[in-house]
């Protein structure tokens, strides 16, 4: 599939490309974070603020106060995955191999996501409740964590790797014109898969965080109801 003579070099290409993406994002962050202006932002600051606002909104949707922890966590996954997916659009020979089209990279990302979720819920709730969530009410939830890793990693790998392979095959069969269509379709998949990875990670995280809080909320509502009833009763007594 790949150009002749690079098969044995593939692991190094993956590492180099992934490192390049990470370095590029760091440089982008440094440039975008310099001389921030108040009021109506322009240019690069506007663009980066739009991303940050979306991520903060996503983190706030979980009804959690630790936005400072969750938003950068989700944002790292989103930016890293979307940039490494979009590497396939570049016309540069070896740089256009996206790192996410290899299973080891996506497995690493998925493992980081699931363990990160456990760590964040530990910070939020303490060690024992977070561990209790893994085995309570049924121990099968441990298996569901494993299947989360599998589904996250296989989805990303299958979409991006499959698309990359299809684009290589099409480019070999029809080198002119037709690959443009495949790349245009791949553009959708690249953005969508990064979005889906982030959304699913935040969903898993939310289900880990809010296992206990729903009960507390319900109890709180009951207490409020009782107080309201008591108030109404006293008002009625006073009126009589």
């Amino acid at each position, binding site marked *: 599939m790949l150009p002749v003579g690079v098969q044995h070099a593939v692991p190094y290409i993956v590492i180099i490309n992934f490192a390049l993406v990470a370095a590029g994002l760091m440089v982008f962050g440094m440039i975008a974070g310099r001389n921030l202006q108040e009021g109506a932002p322009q240019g690069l600051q506007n663009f980066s603020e739009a991303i940050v606002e979306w991520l903060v909104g996503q983190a706030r949707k979980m009804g959690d106060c630790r936005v400072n922890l969750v938003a950068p966590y989700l944002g790292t996954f989103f930016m890293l995955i979307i940039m490494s997916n979009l590497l396939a659009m570049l016309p540069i020979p070896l740089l256009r191999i996206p790192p996410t089209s290899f299973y080891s990279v996506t497995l690493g990302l998925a493992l980081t996501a699931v363990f990160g979720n456990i760590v964040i819920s530990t910070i939020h709730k303490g060690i024992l409740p977070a561990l209790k969530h893994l085995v309570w009410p049924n121990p099968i939830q441990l298996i569901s964590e494993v299947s989360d890793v599998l*589904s996250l990693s*296989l*989805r990303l790998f*299958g*979409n991006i790797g499959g698309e990359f392979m299809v684009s290589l095959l099409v480019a070999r069969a029809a080198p002119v014109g037709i690959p443009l269509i495949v790349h245009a379709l791949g553009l959708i998949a690249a953005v*969508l898969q990064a979005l889906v990875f982030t*959304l699913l990670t935040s969903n898993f995280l939310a289900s880990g965080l809010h296992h206990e809080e729903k009960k507390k909320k319900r109890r709180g509502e009951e207490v409020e109801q009782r107080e309201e009833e008591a108030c109404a009763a006293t008002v009625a007594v006073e009126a009589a």
Partner: protein
Amino acid sequence: MKDLIVVAPAFAVMPAAIGAAWAMSHISRSAIDGMTRQPEMGGQLFTAMLIGNALVEALVIYCLVIALMLAGKI
């Protein structure tokens, strides 16, 4: 009999792709139905649609991985 492995990847992906196409069409149609009836719910419905589609898609991807493993044995 051993030559059948050449067509095995195709038959591994095909039924999964047919089923997933049906399921994804169902999800998208219902989501678009909801969006036209209540445009102000559009954002939430779109997110839910994406997650549902991704969950359906995962099943096809499992089959695709199996097909890739089979294709490696040719």
